[in-house]
């Protein structure tokens, strides 16, 4: 198992993939450590999430860090399983993160609320939940669960997601795994869709 330092910040859902596999607390001061010359020497892209192995190996991008700290079970034991992990990691980043951010960020007061953009994003989220409702029976992909977390905390009230029972069941199963508990603690799911926080 890999040992090292994860540079992240509290509640960073991008770090959960790594933390759930690492299950060790990050030691890092966001906004300070990542602006120092020594940090930029290690991580020239100056991006945070970043991981420094005790052996001096440096890697950034959440999916690369999660990959590096993972084991064969998470990588996929066959080329088909491994390709499906890559597929869902890529799908989560390209197709889930943007509509999820559009729905969630205004409720956290960190982005302006745009009614039309939010309605469009909610429709994309419905399509994703529908896709997973058919697919999640076949496999559990850590990255998808982490990417949906904020949606289930802020937006997915029961009237919205009751049409996708398999996805809801799959998600609840994931967050109740001991590795998730160790990092996320008890996740308080959305009862009433959070409104735009001016």
């Amino acid at each position, binding site marked *: 198992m890999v040992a090292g330092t994860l540079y992240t910040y509290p*509640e960073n859902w991008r770090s959960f993939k790594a933390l759930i596999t690492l299950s060790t607390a990050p030691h890092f001061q*966001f*906004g300070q450590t990542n602006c120092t010359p020594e940090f930029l020497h290690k991580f020239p892209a100056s991006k945070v999430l970043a991981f420094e192995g005790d052996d001096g190996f440096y890697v950034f991008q959440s999916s690369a860090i999660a990959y590096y700290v993972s084991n064969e079970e998470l990588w996929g034991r066959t080329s088909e399983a491994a390709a499906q992990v890559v597929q869902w990691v890529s799908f989560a980043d*390209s*197709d889930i993160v*943007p509509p999820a951010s559009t729905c969630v*960020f205004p409720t*956290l007061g960190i*982005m302006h609320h745009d009614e039309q953009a939010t309605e469009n994003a909610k429709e994309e989220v419905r399509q994703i939940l529908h896709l997973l409702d058919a697919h999640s029976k076949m496999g559990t992909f850590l990255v998808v669960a982490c990417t949906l977390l904020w949606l289930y905390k802020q937006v997915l009230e029961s009237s919205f997601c009751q049409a996708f029972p398999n996805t809801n069941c799959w998600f609840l199963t994931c967050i109740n795994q001991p590795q998730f508990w160790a990092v996320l603690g008890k996740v308080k799911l959305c009862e009433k869709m959070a409104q735009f926080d001016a």
Partner: protein
Amino acid sequence: MATNFLVHEKICFDKLKYEDAERRFYEQMKGG
């Protein structure tokens, strides 16, 4: 034109907006 298909690609043109929002959120968190 063959390149017209490219318009179907799913591309996050608002990347910087989201990154700024994420940064604001976590600096709020850090500020307590």
